[in-house]
């Protein structure tokens, strides 16, 4: 059961507020990831507030759409959106990454309401999602499975094993969203001392998915209306699996983090935190 549909502007505001919560959680935990969650958060907000047919008060409802965050290191982004959507209390975000918390560093399906598949060891969530989709077809269920991968994650061989199998089975009840922010944690050194080369150059990544038989759509992952339209298009495709290659900016939303690979996983200083809160329009800026 979806909530009353929020507008595009309202989803943008949800994502903005989520960015604030994410940084607060990471600062509080003194650990976690920021860059990847920020590149993914506009899409996650759109999925959970406009696309996914889920019931926050009945997280295990069998006919729900499934979502798997295969890029599991962006867990805090998923937790934040799940909390905002009502799967658990916002206060629980403060327990992120701590002992006995339901919100572990990487998603754990056994403890967190709304997490459909454990993930974090890269590429594995994708395989799990494919299994959900194939199982759903076997059981005659008509929900859709969405899975989000990082572009760096697509280094993993298991991703291409799965891409191959999905094509053989013409799995058209799964939508893979590739968060192509063009930076991975440390990556390959470029020509200059500080340059880090992208995981995939130009349209190489989209080309790979096409070469594996997937129907590929491309979109700006921060343009909420465009993303929503692209998801609709993806759901209309039949006979082949669909990959949405979403072009995003790592650290999107905070000036000094954008396109800076060092913000893959980093805890902000007091000063950095204050600047971020101000840029994100937190009315209680600086309160950690």
């Amino acid at each position: 059961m979806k909530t009353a549909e929020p507008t595009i502007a309202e989803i943008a505001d949800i994502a903005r507020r989520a960015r604030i919560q994410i940084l607060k959680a990471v600062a509080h935990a003194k650990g976690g990831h920021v860059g990847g969650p920020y590149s993914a958060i506009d899409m996650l907000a759109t999925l959970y507030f406009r696309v996914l047919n889920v019931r926050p008060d009945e997280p295990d409802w069998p006919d729900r759409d499934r979502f798997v965050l295969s890029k599991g290191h962006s867990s805090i982004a998923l937790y934040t959106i799940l909390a905002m959507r009502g799967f658990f209390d916002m206060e629980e975000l403060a327990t992120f990454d701590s002992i006995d918390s339901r919100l572990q560093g990487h998603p754990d399906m056994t403890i967190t309401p709304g997490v459909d598949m454990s993930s974090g060891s890269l590429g594995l969530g994708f395989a799990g999602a494919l299994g959900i989709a194939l199982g759903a077809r076997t059981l005659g269920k008509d929900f859709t499975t969405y899975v989000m991968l990082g572009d760096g994650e697509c280094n993993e061989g298991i991703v291409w094993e799965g891409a191959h199998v999905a094509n053989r089975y013409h799995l058209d009840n799964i939508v893979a969203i590739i968060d192509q922010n063009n930076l991975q944690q440390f990556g390959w050194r470029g020509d200059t001392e500080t340059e880090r080369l992208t995981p995939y150059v130009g349209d190489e990544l989209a080309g790979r998915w096409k070469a594996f038989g997937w129907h590929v759509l491309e979109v700006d992952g921060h343009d909420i209306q465009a993303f929503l339209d692209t998801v609709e298009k993806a759901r209309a495709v039949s006979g082949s699996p669909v990959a949405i290659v979403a072009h995003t900016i790592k650290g999107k939303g905070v000036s000094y983090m954008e396109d800076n690979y060092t913000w893959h996983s980093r805890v902000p200083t007091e000063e950095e935190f204050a600047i971020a809160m101000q840029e994100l329009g937190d009315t209680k800026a600086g309160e950690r």
Partner: protein
Amino acid sequence: MTSLAPGKALRVAFGETIAELARTDPRLVVLDGDTGSSTRTDFFENEHPERFFQMGITEQNMLGMAAGMATLGLIPIVSTFACFIVSRAHDSIRVLIAQPKLNVKLMGGYAGLLAGMTGKTHLIFDDISIMRAMANMTVIAPADEIETRKALPAIIDHPGPVYLRLTRPNSPILFDDDYEFEIGKAVTLREGSDITVFSTGLQSVRAYEAAQTLATEGIDVHLVHVPTIKPLDVDAIVSAAAKTDLVMTSEEHTIVGGLGGAIAETLAEHHPVTVKRHGLQDVFGESGPDAALLEKYGISPSKTAEAVRETVRSHKA
């Protein structure tokens, strides 16, 4: 000594039984890693093609997809060579199956030293050590076709992941048709007073034959078959060890961490006695005829008898 009647390979019993169980259990699905004609999931494919999924040669993906299917209430049986399940797809099993305790059954065919002239790349005999070290995992190694048939319904009924270790060759019949398999229970194959031998898998047949031979020489072996290596039948193991206060373990598996490791750990805690571990030493395997490999690597029936003799002799000395 009466020799045991010939029987089918465990993988054949496995293939026939899962096809049969699927007639009444719609939750069963099979995922095959392009080895169905070897691990004999072809019986299942022929009878239930709509529930048979060819995953190709994508073991990491195959184990992950099985996990996804299990979240929907299906019971996936994943089948390929043991080496590719246990070592190649280890991370998928650990993160997606064992940690969430999903109901996936892992069938590692071709475990042990004998894999049909394939050589060391296709041999795995540290699989018991690896799988029993993984939390939430149950590890079962049947000895013959009867036990394989009896074990499968129990494995399907058992909630959570199970690693079923099957060896490739035909196995003589060790059990009667009325044998009752229970997960976690050890079985006494022979009462004896000089030494207790614990064995598992097809090696139990060789140990049984060795015990028959030794009886004619005046060495009275108490033989206990341990089909469930995890969870171990601690009470049965302690009481059997207490009968003789001299123990040997025997397995078609490395002596590092497998059945021998499990028994030694248990007895060290509960009933310290001398434990001699018999099995494959710290080696990798090679190609060759089965009988010659068993001799060279020291686990044939005659070599097993020799190991028992040596253990008894050195204990008395």
